[in-house]
């Protein structure tokens, strides 16, 4: 079980380790494994926006859980990216309220501007475009999410402006 970690292997920074201590405190000590989801979220942030097989193995060792337990959870929830994503993960809602308010045009504008479709990452690694289900901002439809941020009440022009202003 205990393997030597090579220098390139993912591992938590001291700041992340301090954060894990805060996370563990939320749960009774005898139910430490409840922290798996927040620890996976943290790992994804720490390790470049996605969870590589090595990152999942690291979390398994860190949590003292079987790798299959970790993989089972990471693959069940859509927010854990098991494939590399671009620096900007653009998630467009096309569910009913957004669709009624013009998400088709938003998707078209994104495709035209980025030159990629759903599930694709731009060649320069800047953008990944994804279609997602309802993100819970329906009264401000249409909307999309870029990394942690919601962008609401969109028009095709606004979307292009947002993309072009990304650093």
């Amino acid at each position, binding site marked *: 079980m205990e393997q030597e970690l090579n220098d390139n292997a993912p591992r938590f920074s001291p700041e992340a380790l301090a954060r894990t201590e805060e996370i563990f*405190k*939320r*749960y*009774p000590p005898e*139910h430490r*494994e*409840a*922290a*798996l*989801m*927040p620890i*996976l*979220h943290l790992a994804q942030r720490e390790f470049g926006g996605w969870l590589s097989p090595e990152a999942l193995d690291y979390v398994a060792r860190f949590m003292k859980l079987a790798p299959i337990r970790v993989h*089972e*959870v990471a693959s*069940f*929830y*859509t*927010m*854990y990216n098991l494939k590399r994503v671009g620096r900007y993960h653009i998630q467009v809602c*096309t*569910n*009913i*309220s957004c*669709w*009624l*308010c013009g998400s088709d045009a938003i998707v078209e504008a994104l495709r035209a501007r980025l030159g990629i479709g759903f599930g694709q990452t731009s060649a320069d690694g800047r953008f990944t475009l994804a279609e*997602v*289900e*309802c*993100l*819970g*901002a*329906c*009264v*401000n*439809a249409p909307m999309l*999410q870029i990394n*942690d*941020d*919601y962008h609401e009440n969109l028009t095709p022009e606004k979307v292009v402006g947002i993309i072009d202003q990304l650093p």
Partner: protein
Amino acid sequence: MNQSAPIQIVFRNIHKADSHTLAVYLAGGGYKAVVRALARTPEEVIEEVKKSGIRGRGGAGFPAGIKWSFIPRVSHRPKYLVCNADEGEPGTCKDRDILRYDPHRLIEGMIIAGHAVGAERGYIYIRGEFFHESQRVEAAIRDAYAKGYLGENIFGKGIRFDLAIHLGGGAYVCGEETALLESLEGKKGQPRVKPPFPANVGLWGGPTVINNVETLASIPDIIEHGGAWYASLGVEKSTGTKIFSVSGHVNRPGNHEVAMGIPLKTLLETHAGGVRGGWDNLKGVIPGGSSSPILTRAACETVTMDYDSIAKAGSMLGSGAVIVLDRSVCVVRAIARLSRFYRHESCGQCTPCREGTGWLSQIMDRLEAGGGQRGDIELLEELCGNISGKTICALGDAAAMPVAGAIRAFREEFVHHVAHGRCMVE
């Protein structure tokens, strides 16, 4: 009372500057109700909430006071209070505003609820995409700890109540309470077989009460002004106020808090700025989130926004997400989109749902794309019947209801699709 007047209970603070801060919440009279509640016995608090008649605002509409009374007074396992903030029913976005604009109202409601059921630990399960909202809640929890409102000796009363957040991972099914518990325990979010119910065997096997954000955020006012006062708002069996998320084809989409029982037409015409293109341009309304059957314009003329009236019209109040469709919309296409959603969100545990949602979506897509076959409508109806009531949780029913409801209300559009391979409206 006048059902049409705007009334703000849960949303009272949210338009104030810095409404999420402790200072603003305290200035508005915050954390007074909890002091009052802690001076009363748990039984008295539950009695007050029962008297209010408030029903669960997450969608199921179960009376909250009765839910609390199911928690055994004495338990050899720790008891837990869980707030369901996994807001994910398409069309619904009211809890997000409470989380980001008035987190202390929720925290106060949870401390009161914790006292009522005897839980020493609570969790707020927030959908993972609400990252900024979760940070607001976390900051509010920190401030409440610093004041001694949370912790081992809350308000100096010798009572313990710890509170923490838990972020979801993007799975609609975790809004189902037992799937939520699994997820909170660090597992895949697959619903549990009931019974046993969470009130007896919930989080880590302990008695657990799970309430929606809006329900818990209503509790401080119920304690402050009394259950009878709350019950005087709204109508019989649908008491108090409700936040309706009005989206789609209205001129002023938004979250509107009104007394229950308001006519749907008033909600749309007065509060939501009217249907785009005028009332006559209305095709139908999905009145309670994506799983509630669509109402025709004729039904929308008379239905009132309470549990009984909407049920009588053949739909349900659900989470209070009112999705408005004007006459430019093809009903088949709209429902096909919802079917795709349920197929995506089925957790895969029960065969009727796992397989059935896939078939519903495939047939709806086929109809929409012009490849509908004779017998498809009957096949959809049969499928709905084979899913409903045959699964561990209600996701299967939620997938079937919009399809069966749309066929009931707009059968001619489905028939047109099969016969002509295209929409009536496009």
